[in-house]
């Protein structure tokens, strides 16, 4: 029982990570691949934040009467990672738009066929 309480967060993280990973390698559509990549990314965020949590702690903002705070360091790392993540996602989506313009499709197998023709 204590094993479940100790580790369920990490297990769900692994599940989400694999769901994202599966979408990236199995999906045919490039937009869906990017969504999968984002799911993967968010699972990593949850992993970091889970590690920073202290049982019985509170948010790392100084307040009266509170002695236990959760670890602020993972929060900082993930906060910036989220914004950088959306910026890089935007670059990925822009590439998808350009691929659509160049090949007329965003389905992976279709533009591979066109590459073979060239």
């Amino acid at each position: 029982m204590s094993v479940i309480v100790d580790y369920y967060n990490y297990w769900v993280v692994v599940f989400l990570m694999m769901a994202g990973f599966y979408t990236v390698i199995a999906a045919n559509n490039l937009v869906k691949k990017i969504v999968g990549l984002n799911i993967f990314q968010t699972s990593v965020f949850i992993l970091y934040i889970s590690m920073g949590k202290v049982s019985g702690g509170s948010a790392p903002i100084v307040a009266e009467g509170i002695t236990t705070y959760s670890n602020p360091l993972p929060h900082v790392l993930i906060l910036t990672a989220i914004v950088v993540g959306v910026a890089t996602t935007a670059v990925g989506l822009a590439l998808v738009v350009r691929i659509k313009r160049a090949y007329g499709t965003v389905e992976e197998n279709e533009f591979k066929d066109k590459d073979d023709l060239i």
Partner: protein
Amino acid sequence: MAELINLLLLGMLAVTALGVVFLKDLFAVVMLFGIYSFLSALIFVNLDAVDVAFTEAAVGAGISTVLMLGTLSLTGRQEKMSGHKTLLPLLVVVTTGAALIYGTLDMPPFGNPENPVHQHVALRYIQDSPQEIGLPNMVTSVLASYRGFDTLGETAVVFAAAIGVLSLLGLPKQDRAAIESGLESHLVLKVVAKIIIPLIILFALYVQFHGDYGPGGGFQAGVIAAAAIILYALVFGLPLATQVVQPGLLKALAALGVLLYAGTGVASFFLGGNFLDYNVLAADPVAGQHLGIILIELGVGITVFAAMLSIFYAFASKAERKNIQ
């Protein structure tokens, strides 16, 4: 109780992720991804990461959903059936997942204060930063002061990503002829948008300058301010929005933010300190820290605002051009 809520939210997150994997309608996939982001924001609140939750709600659920919808309008909303075999990917995923689950058993238990991650620098951040920096919000202290180099790098990445998107898609041209586009028939939407857009911008400013004392800061404020202008562009049309906040101005602002950040660092070493050492910016070290943090948070806010908005402009102008054709 908190554990129970956590478990419930994580379960919902897993179900949403499964929906994303198996749905073929990409519009539904993007919407589910927005829900997924909101759910993860709730989990972050539950795990005490209020700043992170704030950012995830504004960025993950707001901006990235809009960008993905913009992409879908250009690429089509249905995923075609693929001739891919699903067996091999499934096998790879299950094997990797099993290995990772086996790996988690060696990790320190969740939430234990004795975990190694809480023993290293975190102690100093929690115990000393309120005196050294003088700010109640430790996340802001660590983000802007202790890890100032890191944040400078992240801001530069956001700036570089905006340049990348602009060079791939290009900014919209200002077009006075098409100024009357937008949602003419949605009168209610227009009236409400006019009321709440100033409120959103006011809230962004509050988040920007209150970030030292509560959750918030430059990253969140920049995204919220960009969201206000995005709402304006969606309701009143892109041509009008580009008249209000001009694309050329955004390019200058994006660079200005990074310059302000790096300039604060340069100023600190001309005053005799190290790069990004704010103690020397004022006579009193704590006052110097306050000044430095306000300046660099402002730089971050300006860059994030300009980068997010110009990325949106780039996508929206492509979508609008396609609709006209």
